[in-house]
């Protein structure tokens, strides 16, 4: 072997060693990027493992950050060495399902509600005093407590109030069939009552009942605007019974009432099922479906840091009887009370549905970690539709006793849904100039029970905006 050949081999071996070094370094970087950065971001199991490790490491010194309302008033917090964060009396129950909990035991992450999804900030972003970030919610403590104590008053259900302009959730209180105290996790996880651990308002997908008549009415008005329909399109003679074409399924009004000659306003005021069943069939599945989709029924809506709400509608290829049932709020449609509040808000905003936000700001020391900004979630329909529907909904609200003199301009519609297991789910959705709301009672008899509750709620909401 010549000297040059030997040198050449040496140079080749040096090159090979460079290649080996490159492979080792890139494999190391790729493996660790995947394990510690990419996978925890993409995979919930890996994220749970990461959170478990962090929680175990910090649980002895980390103090959970405060959660405050939009005015900075404490909801839950004041954690100190040896004292866990707690919610003062009243808020411990009115906020219970919203706040939830975050713990780790036996290498498993247990999380629920805002504390469950905000653990990165509340527990894992510590300031110099080892305290987590402060989370400011969009809610109003007084309204939240009032809604829980006075409006729900121990009944199973939820109250949701949204700011029309910003989409901020001013109030979201829930009550299930257990007495959940957020300071006592055992009161929640120790319960074996069926369905007790689901947050009313965002979980239960029930038929919307007569509140869906707003959607049917909006679709009909849209058809009228588009096609310049004759005046008698909205006229109907009610006999107390309605048979859809090619069907012997009878649709009746509430308490088998017979309303005679009715137009859209009278039908809405009195919640005439037969009128809306007929109107739905006249509008057609396509247009009904389009309006429902425009109002995001059938689409998931994400409430940042809280949850994603789901809904369902399917009338694309439906028989007239299904369309008729859907048109007055039964059929296959399923929706959550929170979504109904968003539909009311879209009506209030002349067709613009705002992105719902419940977390306003997250701050650690002087560092702003998160801030919500008002944004339009969807342009659902034209302003002209809202313009024509608002007077109808206002007269409906007045009919409920929510008069102008004591409450100002209020627009509302009730709904009674027949659910599985013979359960009756009642709603009232509505809006004022400033806020939209939905009161939902999961197991009640009559939606008319909600009229005085809605009036009380509206008066309280008006008080808040007057103070501002």
């Amino acid at each position, binding site marked *: 072997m010549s000297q040059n050949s030997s040198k050449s081999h040496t140079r080749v071996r*040096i090159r090979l060693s460079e290649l080996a070094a490159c492979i080792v370094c890139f494999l190391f970087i790729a493996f660790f990027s995947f394990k510690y*950065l990419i996978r925890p971001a993409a995979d919930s199991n890996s994220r749970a493992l990461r959170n478990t490790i962090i929680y175990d490491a910090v649980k002895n010194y980390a103090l959970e950050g405060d959660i405050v309302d939009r005015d900075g008033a404490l909801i839950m917090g004041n954690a100190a060495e040896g004292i866990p964060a707690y919610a003062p009396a009243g808020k411990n129950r009115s906020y219970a399902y919203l706040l939830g909990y975050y713990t780790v035991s036996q290498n498993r992450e247990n999380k629920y509600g805002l504390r469950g999804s905000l653990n990165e900030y509340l527990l894992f972003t510590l300031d110099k005093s080892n305290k987590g970030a402060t989370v400011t919610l969009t809610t109003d403590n007084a309204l939240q407590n009032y809604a829980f104590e006075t409006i729900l008053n121990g009944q199973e259900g939820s109250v949701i109030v949204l700011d029309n302009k910003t989409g901020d959730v001013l109030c979201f209180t829930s009550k299930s069939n257990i007495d959940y105290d957020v300071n006592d996790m055992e009161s929640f996880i120790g319960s074996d009552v069926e369905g007790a651990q689901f947050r009313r308002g965002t979980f239960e997908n029930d038929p919307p009942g007569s509140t869906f008549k707003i959607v049917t009415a909006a679709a009909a008005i849209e058809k009228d605007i588009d096609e310049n329909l004759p005046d008698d399109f909205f006229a109907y003679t009610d006999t107390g019974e309605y048979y859809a074409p090619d069907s012997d399924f009878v649709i009746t009004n509430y308490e088998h009432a017979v309303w005679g000659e009715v137009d859209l306003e009278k039908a809405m005021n009195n919640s005439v099922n037969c009128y809306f069943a007929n109107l739905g069939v006249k509008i057609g599945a396509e247009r009904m479906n389009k309006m429902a989709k425009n109002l995001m029924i059938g689409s998931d809506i994400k409430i940042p840091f809280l949850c994603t709400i789901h809904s369902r509608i399917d009338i694309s290829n439906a028989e007239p009887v299904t369309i008729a049932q859907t048109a007055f709020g039964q059929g296959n449609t399923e929706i959550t009370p929170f979504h109904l509040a968003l539909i009311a808000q879209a009506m209030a905003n002349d067709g613009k549905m705002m992105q719902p936000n419940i977390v306003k700001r997250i701050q650690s020391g002087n560092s702003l970690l998160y801030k919500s900004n008002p944004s339009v979630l969807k342009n659902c329909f034209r302003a002209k539709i809202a313009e024509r529907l608002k007077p109808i909904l206002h007269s409906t609200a007045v009919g409920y006793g929510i008069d102008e003199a004591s409450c100002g301009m209020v627009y509302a519609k009730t709904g009674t849904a027949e659910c599985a297991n013979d359960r009756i789910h009642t709603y009232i959705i509505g809006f004022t100039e400033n806020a939209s709301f939905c009161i939902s009672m999961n197991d009640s008899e009559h939606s008319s029970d909600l009229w005085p509750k809605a009036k009380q709620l509206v008066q309280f909401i008006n008080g808040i905006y007057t103070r501002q």
Partner: protein
Amino acid sequence: MFFTKKKSGIEPAAEKEAVDRSDRYIILAVLIQVGMSGLLFLKSREASLNYLILLIPILIVTAFLGTHTYNKDGDMKLFFAFAVLASIGAALQFLVDEIYHPPTVFSPVKYLISFGCSFLFILFYKLFRKMLNHSVTLYLAILMAAGIYALLYFKGVDPNGYGTKAWLTVGPVTFQLTDFTKITALIFYSTLFSSKSERSTWFILVISSFFFALNLAGSVLIHELGSFFILFFLHLSVLCIFMPHSMAKRIYLIAIFLFCVMVVGGSFVLYKILLPQAESGTMNRISTIIWPVVKKIYVRFSLTANLNSDPYGSGYQLLQGKKALWMSGLFGNTVNFSALPVPESDMAFIALASAFGLPLAFFTVLMFLRIFISGSEISRKISEYDPADSVLVYSVTVMLFLQAMIVILGSCNLIPFTGLPIPFLSRGGTYQAIVFSFAGLMISLSQNNGRKYKESEVDPDVTEQLEIPYPGQDQAQ
């Protein structure tokens, strides 16, 4: 003048015509060094202020040395890697003092003194390298290594309680003498492959094995396997790369590999045999000497296989490191995690990831890779005319890169963990001085496109005609 390239008479015509934009690496290095102060400010104001004070000399040195290297056609990417790693290491050490409060405090003065030592080393290197061409240097290096181990065996101290006698105290100064065994290894291997002496393959294998065995015995006696680990890899790398192809070489390398496997396997068997004796305190003299080594090997390999085998004992350090890695994320941990043992030295890489985030930690790995590639390329160029310098620069490269990667991969529990400092990132006056000296040596040898000493010592026309004998060439033919 900064960044103004002087005319170099040795550049090929084509290179002269090309615009050299490698000066941008100086600017980039300065930007990163300044940027580190901003990053540090976000983590700790106190650490940031301390860093700012050290930043002034760092910037001055970067500007002057960078310009000098640029003017001398040095490897600017290599310079960039060194400059950036030095500043990241300093920033990390200031932050470590603020977060972890280790037993020693990072001293910027020591840091600058280490830097000064490396300057002196480079200044005298021209004289020093002449030694590499004398056969007697080979034996001198062996004697020096033996002397160091003997001195440590009888006079070595263990100031940090690591269980090794790797330090020597002279008056008020304590320094890690095992770091000097690396210099003796450099001298040894460079001399061994020097072009001025013709050596047979057998001679190379026998004498290098003797040197290797000497280091092994010395390391066992002073219970310092970390440094030996690096010398072991250096031994294999140098022989593998620079020895010409031959059957003897192949058999030797395979034998060494099998020997390693047997040592690990044997340690496991010996551990099981000696454990009852160790527990009952009935070990004989030989057992007493080998027991710590056997136990260390057993524990290190067992931990790599199962980190939870001893979570509150020998596995605690790595387990905390693993936690820190999970917390690191993109921008460092946000939970004030400070339960990381030895963050100033062995776990410096984990501390870096935990403090500044994984991307910066990965960036340092890339910088070490840059050092290896540049060093290897310089070695390739120099190998054309001076095997001794080529072996020297490759050995230095291997020592920097391998030590970094062995400790980084070990601290991440991908390989058995070895308690060694990470070049540039860890503190320690003696080691810093050696690392800076190595860095200076590599930069110096990269100058004039890897022809620094060729141009100054040998007439280029004569070199073209010279048939320089290559060590081991006779046997390989």
